[in-house]
């Protein structure tokens, strides 16, 4: 059994039957309900909402929120002794659906392969917020374990009543309860409740604290946790059978393409619809404010119409942004729109004045895109005065709520059917496309599929904010770090939230946006170094054009750890070099000095991952850079470390730098990773590998480029990404996962994915320095930039 990415599937196939009753029946049959022979009104659990009064037309509804305090909202057990878990999260390709099945089957005491998991669709799963912050197991693992444990408790009580013995006299194994003293007396979960409701009310103030009366198993009793069952979503992705959000087809569906302003901030003056009226299949041009879309019967017709539509735009008189090559000069001279209160430890000014050696360095990370592999898309069905949106949006519940507000529809008339899609890594344009599809469907009165183009996606998706960081460090006569200053400027004014009805792109372009931009933020490093005098400051700056701009920021994996850690961990390396110390030893020394954190918890685990990375790599202690080699290829190694929440990460990169071409190859990567309790080690390893390589791509290739009016890096040629040729020859992932304190061996699970992305940029930069003696302080390390730096240094 599987993680069913398609509660959606049957639902969305249903309208093609053109019969609401049969569609529900098919759906329930798919879900295994009709086999138990109960009528629609007695449907259990998550499908009760669907099973209510049949609506006229194609779509059932309304779609009220599921009650998180009902056990039946979370778990359904069928007569064949299988269980389905309903989880209000989305799986973006890291295998969280499989992981939920592992933790829940353990607590329920049912065989893993007798379970399935339905995720993310707003009308069949409780709103757990969808995905974000790598928190699926860290936050949501707990309520899911508790509801599974509660189901087990209730089933044991039912068996106790049936057999007339106390619960303590029962044994349960893989969904079969037996009387311990009389092992022939057995009954399955399916026989006890199959197809029926638990009718158990849970407690808890909110969805994260929901609980029953059962207690959780100690970690030693978890059997599926720590195993690596293959991810259940992979076969359908490999054989072509999976139906993705991009594959949705509905009767009467039409195709829309956006027509974006040709330059940022342009205002719509007029549209010449006659320029496309002759295109076969043309239906309509829809516009509101500066939002323009064409709608046609067929996809290729809409593409042509979007290309050929004549629109008269009025360009803005002022430059919308500096040219990307002038970005950091601009950021340093701009007046911040917001500054955090500085975090100060000790007396940095006095310490710098007394230091034997003071060094300064500026680091720069440009805007980098999400650049989803599949451009944004969504399909919306306006049937029956409702709105169903088929979307891969990572926050399906937020999309539902936002669209309801945007269209001024009751929330229970809007639902989002979540389906698989291209990687997200934060706030992508899937949000924007979902709103656009719903808006257009309402305008046209037919189901509408919106598909962004590659150029639109790459130019207009949200970007990770650019950072300009000024660092200063002071060493005493013994080479100890006595003072450090971190002063970051982030181009993050008007940082976009998720699915906000008044900040999504169509709201901006259509003149329906809020007045006040979001403040944005500038982050400071996450480390446990003991530095007696330290000042850390973050400020936000704005580009001239704040709204209706393609250079807009949103959460991109972490969401700013890669930038911050690049500056900070590169500079720690510079200080180690200035102190003529081994960079790994230098870090261990900085970590070993203090006990001011949570009982040494983070600090001890930080030391452990650094040591584990060193051991896995075979680190040889010596200062960087290494003596200059002869020949074209220079090799070196670098280390960097960071943490996020309670997940500790240390990475080592080994690079080859071609001194003739400037080309950098990360030949080997090592990651030591401690995210507490690991549910599925093999799935985690792959998530860590891919997270590192994503940051390697950001280190080597990625940069949003623009002139003063538009993004100029808008396809895979002008906006390069990591390729097969860049792939390391070897990647080692060491799962450390433990607390060195023997008093507390059982760690909870912490968020695993995003922490991985933080140190890679610095590890690569530090390795390049080790190889060449040249310090690269500007990302990305494209060949021409590296070559220029090598030549300037005479390498």
């Amino acid at each position: 059994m599987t993680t069913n990415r398609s509660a959606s599937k049957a639902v969305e196939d249903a309208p093609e039957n053109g019969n609401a009753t049969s569609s529900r029946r098919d759906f329930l049959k798919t879900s295994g309900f009709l086999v138990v022979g109960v009528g629609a009104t007695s449907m259990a659990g998550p499908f009760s909402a669907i099973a209510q009064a049949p609506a006229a037309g194609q779509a059932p509804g309304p779609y009220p929120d599921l009650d998180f305090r009902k056990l039946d909202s979370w778990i359904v057990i069928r007569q064949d002794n299988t269980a389905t878990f309903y989880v209000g999260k989305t799986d973006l390709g890291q295998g969280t659906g499989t992981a939920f099945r592992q933790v829940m089957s353990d607590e329920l005491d049912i065989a893993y392969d007798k379970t399935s998991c339905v995720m993310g669709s707003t009308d069949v799963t409780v709103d757990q917020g969808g995905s974000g912050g790598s928190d699926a197991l860290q936050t949501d693992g707990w309520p899911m374990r508790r509801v599974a444990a509660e189901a087990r408790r209730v089933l044991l009580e039912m068996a106790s009543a049936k057999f007339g013995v106390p619960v303590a006299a029962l044994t349960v194994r893989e969904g079969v309860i037996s009387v311990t003293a009389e092992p022939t007396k057995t009954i399955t979960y399916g026989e006890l409740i199959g197809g029926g409701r638990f009718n158990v009310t849970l407690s808890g103030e909110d969805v994260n604290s929901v609980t029953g009366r059962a207690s959780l198993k100690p970690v030693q009793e978890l059997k599926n946790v720590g195993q690596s069952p293959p991810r259940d979503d992979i076969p359908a992705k490999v054989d072509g059978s999976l139906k993705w959000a991009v594959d949705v087809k509905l009767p009467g569906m039409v195709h829309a393409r956006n027509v974006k302003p040709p330059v940022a901030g342009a205002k719509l003056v007029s549209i010449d619809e006659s320029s496309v009226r002759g295109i076969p299949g043309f239906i309509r041009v829809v516009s509101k404010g500066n939002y323009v879309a064409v709608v046609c019967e067929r996809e290729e017709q809409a593409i042509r119409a979007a290309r050929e539509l004549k629109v008269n735009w009025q360009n803005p008189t002022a430059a919308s942004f500096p040219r990307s090559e002038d970005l950091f000069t601009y950021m340093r001279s701009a007046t911040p729109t917001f500054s955090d209160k500085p975090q100060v430890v000790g007396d940095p000014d006095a310490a710098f004045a007394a230091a034997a050696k003071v060094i300064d360095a500026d680091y720069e990370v440009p805007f980098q895109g999400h650049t989803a592999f599949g451009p944004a898309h969504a399909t919306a069905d306006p049937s029956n005065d409702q709105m169903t949106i088929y979307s891969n949006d990572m926050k399906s519940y937020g999309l539902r709520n936002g669209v309801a507000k945007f269209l001024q529809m009751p929330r229970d008339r809007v639902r989002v059917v979540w389906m698989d899609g291209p990687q997200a890594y934060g706030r992508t344009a899937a949000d924007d496309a979902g709103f656009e599809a719903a808006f257009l469907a309402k305008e046209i009165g037919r189901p509408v599929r919106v598909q962004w183009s590659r150029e639109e996606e790459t130019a207009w998706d949200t970007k990770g904010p650019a950072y300009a960081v000024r660092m200063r460090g002071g060493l005493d006569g013994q080479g100890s770090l006595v003072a450090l200053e971190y002063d970051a400027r982030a181009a993050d004014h008007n940082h976009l939230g998720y699915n906000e009805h008044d900040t999504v792109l169509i709201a901006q372009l259509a003149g329906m946006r809020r007045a006040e931009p979001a403040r944005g933020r500038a982050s400071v490093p996450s480390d446990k170094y003991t530095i007696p005098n330290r000042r850390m400051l973050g400020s936000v700056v704005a580009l001239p054009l704040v709204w209706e701009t393609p250079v807009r920021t949103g959460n991109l994996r972490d969401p700013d750890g890669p930038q911050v850690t690049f500056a900070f961990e590169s500079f720690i390396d510079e200080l180690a070099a200035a102190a003529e110390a081994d960079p790994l030893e230098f870090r261990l020394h900085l970590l070993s000095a203090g006990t001011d954190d949570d009982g040494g918890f983070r600090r001890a685990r930080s030391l452990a991952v650094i040591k584990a990375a060193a051991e896995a790599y075979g680190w040889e202690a010596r200062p960087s850079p290494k003596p200059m080699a002869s020949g074209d290829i220079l090799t070196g190694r670098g280390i960097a470390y960071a943490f996020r929440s309670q997940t500790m990460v240390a990475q080592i990169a080994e690079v080859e730098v071609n001194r003739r071409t400037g080309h950098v190859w990360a030949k080997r990567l090592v990651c030591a990773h401690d995210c507490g309790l690991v549910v599925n080690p093999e799935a985690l390893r792959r998530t860590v590998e891919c997270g590192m390589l994503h940051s390697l791509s950001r280190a080597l290739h990625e940069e949003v480029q623009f002139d003063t009016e538009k993004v100029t890096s808008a396809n895979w040629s002008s906006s390069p990404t990591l390729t097969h040729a860049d792939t390391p020859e070897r990647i080692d992932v060491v799962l450390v996962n433990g607390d060195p304190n023997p008093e507390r061996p059982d760690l909870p699970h912490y968020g695993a994915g995003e922490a991985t992305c933080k140190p890679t940029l610095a590890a690569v930069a530090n390795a390049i320095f080790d190889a060449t003696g040249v310090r690269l302080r500007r990302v990305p390390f494209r060949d021409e930039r590296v070559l220029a730096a090598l030549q300037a240094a005479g390498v």
Partner: protein
Amino acid sequence: MISRITLKVNGTTHDLDVEPSTPLLYVLRDDLDLRGPRFGCGLGQCGACTVIIEGEAVRSCVRRVSTVAGAEITTLEGLAVNGTLDPVQQAWIDEQVPQCGFCQNGQILTAKVLLDRNPTPTNAEIREAMERTLCRCMTYYRVQAAIRRAAKATTPSPANAGQGE
């Protein structure tokens, strides 16, 4: 000008009335309901839309449908034989390659063409053959491992027997 075009896809012949300049991708997806080939760029740069035509990995987003009339076209759905996955697909599952999976159509079909031509590629040959097939989840390391695994599976030799990755 709508024309009648005959397409042979995964062993089935289809007669379709389409605009001859329509990219093959949209015909496969919208008229033949195939899901394997996907839109990624429309520029022939990423590989998401890859299909196999007469033994070549072809980017269907930039191939006019009129140019492939009558040719044998294989999509991801057509790779399995009588319900048995192609060794490349099996290697993808065994190696647990995909993250989101959106690009894997292109990875798998490009690898299939590579292995059909060169059953025992070197690492350098794998990198070269796969170079223009992009993945934003960065599954490259496992893709390359899966290609080596599939190569071993399809070319049994005593020296390779029993070797895992």
